[in-house]
């Protein structure tokens, strides 16, 4: 083992900042991180053992215990649940004779719950040793388990294959793209790789920044910060070492647009990164790819090599002397919070993905404490069209404050889940129609951290000035239990994904979830609803990062828009006496001391 681990460490030049890669490689080989490996890593990388251990413990896909030769990670998002997850779980458990979150006695197969894996349009879905298995049914599960027991390799277990890039020529994956509506900016028919890059390097970096500023392109990850301004701030920070990071850690449940971009348009993305690199003076770009999308890693590497061969990456790019820029892909290891840019940077440096205090902002001090721009996948893709067609053309799409188009992931109770490229300003109603959703009770905009709206608000627009979104809508049908099936699931998600750094995020969300369960259990009062609402607001001002600030949104926005659902569940009698049951609560102590229950006990 020692030799093997040493060679893995060697592969990453004994660089402790590449701890993530090293740990993933060890996890792949041994199906866990053995004690011996921790000792060797601490020794070789000049870290303390605790440094190594705390990084391991932070990430969902790194484990100190063996996860099974075949590790099945089954998505447990709300949409998976309404798509038949329970039957799939039952089938797995029956076939293997163990319950979830366990490994078979022979160590062959482990089954684990896992947070959203970006397949909301094809649930229930699971990752098995990195490969994606979609639209699972009890029958498919049976075949899968039989195949695994027969010792088949993962590629041989994949029976259905998706279209085009997902097909045998490149990815050979079960994933399908489901692109339902193409738009001018991301899916332009006449896109030719390198054109925009050549156009960009004919201008000065300042001119590029100005153009992007004028286009009003805003960040597509959700927060909507103007991209040109971010670049400008980075340039102002100065220094000769600057980094560009592409945030492909798309972890918001219900969002899968970056998955499709990475599958269909990787060249557009990498060209956008090269242009951004040129504009801010970065020599290195890093794509932080969520672990769940690692099935694309080799394919993306091959595209990068293709671009290097064409001299669109590497040294003196496209003949421009002195313009050197290259891209590497960094794999995450399963942590929603790493989508937050400062947590992402921590993770890139081989540490726990805990958000940093801001300021300093990444554009001042980011990766390795150098000025760093972190842009979303879709933002960087949009840059290419801004350069090709100009800021004015770009602004001709969308609304006054939200220029351009937006890629949306639509899923949930609808006929046509998938990807829709729309202009900003589109109404929710229109999207409901296009997705073929009927009898819609509610729409979750922008994932759990966004908001939940009812029919009286379906005429609202998707735009930064109205309903801002990082790119997802989940339709929730009339027949669903909105609070029980969705809000509880969303709260569980945030509780699991909290990094634990801020107390209100770490504990308050648990308290809120429990209070919600109390109400769902019929034990709540109006006072509970009021308190829930009041306390939920606390996280917004007392947590450090976006996760903590928005984690209570599932509760906040459903109390705001669906208060009647809560009120239907609570006791309205002002002098309500809880459903506390004296007989039940003294049963244990009475049994311990051997006495009978007598009521009433006389008060003295």
């Amino acid at each position, binding site marked *: 083992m020692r030799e093997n681990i040493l060679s893995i460490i060697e592969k990453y030049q004994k660089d402790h900042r590449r701890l993530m890669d090293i740990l993933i490689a060890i996890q792949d080989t041994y199906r866990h991180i053995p004690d011996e490996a921790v000792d060797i890593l601490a020794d070789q990388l000049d870290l303390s053992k605790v440094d190594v251990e705390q990084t391991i413990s932070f990430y969902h896909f790194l484990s100190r215990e063996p996860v099974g030769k075949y590790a099945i990670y089954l998505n447990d998002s709300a949409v998976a649940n309404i798509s038949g997850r329970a039957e799939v779980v039952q089938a797995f458990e029956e076939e293997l004779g163990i319950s979830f979150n366990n490994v078979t006695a022979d160590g062959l197969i482990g089954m684990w719950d896992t947070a959203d894996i970006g397949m909301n349009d094809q649930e229930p879905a699971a990752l098995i040793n990195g490969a994606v298995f979609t639209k699972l049914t009890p029958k498919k599960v049976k075949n899968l388990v039989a195949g695994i027991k027969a010792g088949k390799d993962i590629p041989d277990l994949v029976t259905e294959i998706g279209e085009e890039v997902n097909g045998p020529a490149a990815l050979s994956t079960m994933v399908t793209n489901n692109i339902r509506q193409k738009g001018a900016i991301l899916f332009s028919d006449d896109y030719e790789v390198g054109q925009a890059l050549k156009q960009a390097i004919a201008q000065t970096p300042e001119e590029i920044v100005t153009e992007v500023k004028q286009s009003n392109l805003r960040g597509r990850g959700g927060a909507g910060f103007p991209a040109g301004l971010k670049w400008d701030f980075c340039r102002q920070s100065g220094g000769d070492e600057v980094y560009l990071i592409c945030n492909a850690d798309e972890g918001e449940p219900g969002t899968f647009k970056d998955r499709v971009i990475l599958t269909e348009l990787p060249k557009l993305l990498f060209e956008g990164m090269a242009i951004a690199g040129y504009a801010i003076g970065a020599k290195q770009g890093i794509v932080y790819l969520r672990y769940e999308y690692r099935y694309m890693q080799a394919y993306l590497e091959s595209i990068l090599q293709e671009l290097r061969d064409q001299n669109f990456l590497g040294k003196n790019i496209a003949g421009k002397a002195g313009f050197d820029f290259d891209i590497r892909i960094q794999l995450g290891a399963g942590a929603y919070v790493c989508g937050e840019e400062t947590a992402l940077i921590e993770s890139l440096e081989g540490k726990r993905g805990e958000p940093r205090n801001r300021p300093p902002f990444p554009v001042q001090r980011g990766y390795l404490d150098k000025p760093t721009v972190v842009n979303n996948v879709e933002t960087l893709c949009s840059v290419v069209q801004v350069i090709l067609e100009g800021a004015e053309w770009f602004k001709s799409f969308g609304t006054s404050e939200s220029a351009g188009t937006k890629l949306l992931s639509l899923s949930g109770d609808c006929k046509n889940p998938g990807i829709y490229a729309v202009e900003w300003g589109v109404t929710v109603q229109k999207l409901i129609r296009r997705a073929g959703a009927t009898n819609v009770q509610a729409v979750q905009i922008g994932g759990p951290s966004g908001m939940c709206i009812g029919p009286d608000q379906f005429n609202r627009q998707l735009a930064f000035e109205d309903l801002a979104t990082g790119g997802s809508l989940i339709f929730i049908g009339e027949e669903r239990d909105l609070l029980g099936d969705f809000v509880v699931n969303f709260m569980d998600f945030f509780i699991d994904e909290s990094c634990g750094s801020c107390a209100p995020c770490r504990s308050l969300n648990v308290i809120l979830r429990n209070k919600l369960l109390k109400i769902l259990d019929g034990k709540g009062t109006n006072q509970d609803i009021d308190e829930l609402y009041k306390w939920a607001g606390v996280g917004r001002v007392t947590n450090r990062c976006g996760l903590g600030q928005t984690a209570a949104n599932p509760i906040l926005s459903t109390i705001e828009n669906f208060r009647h659902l809560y009120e239907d569940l609570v006791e309205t009698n002002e002098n309500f006496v*809880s459903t506390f049951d*004296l007989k039940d609560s003294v049963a244990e*102590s009475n049994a*311990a001391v051997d006495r009978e229950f007598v009521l009433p006990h006389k*008060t003295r």
Partner: protein
Amino acid sequence: MTKPVLATTSLAGCFGCHMSFLDIDERILELIDLVEFNKSPVDDIKTFTKQCDIGLIEGGCCNSENIEVLKDFRKNCNILVSVGECAIMGGLPALRNGISIKECLEEAYLDGPTVKANTEKIMPNDEELPMLLDMVYPCHEIVKIDYFLPGCPPRADLIWNALVALVTGDELKMPYEVVKFD
């Protein structure tokens, strides 16, 4: 005009909140002018003799008697106030909530290192004794509580100010000094 009627009790508490209440010093004379006491350890009235306006509750609920008393207070008082951490969230007694009551009893009466005399391994089970609850409950999980006064104990000034505000209807004065806890 008749004076508002006040009742107080200590459930699973240490009487510290009552002691803090008595810390109002010379204002105790004003207190007598302000309210009439009914069931309370202050005047040693054991049972309610009339409907009261305000009930101050110290301590959470750890046994069946606490439950009975608390329900009795809810029935006989128009306004209930949880006074101090034990009433509000179980406080120190709730430290046992992570341990099963069976284990607690065994540790206390059978297995504890200081248990020497109990050679017959008796656990107290006389029917005169209140029955122990599986956990220590905060008061608002048993009945509706109208107001909460935090602190361990809440300062005399906080209790006094709250009481005066309730009786007079004036706004509660809560300067920083009376709600800081370190």
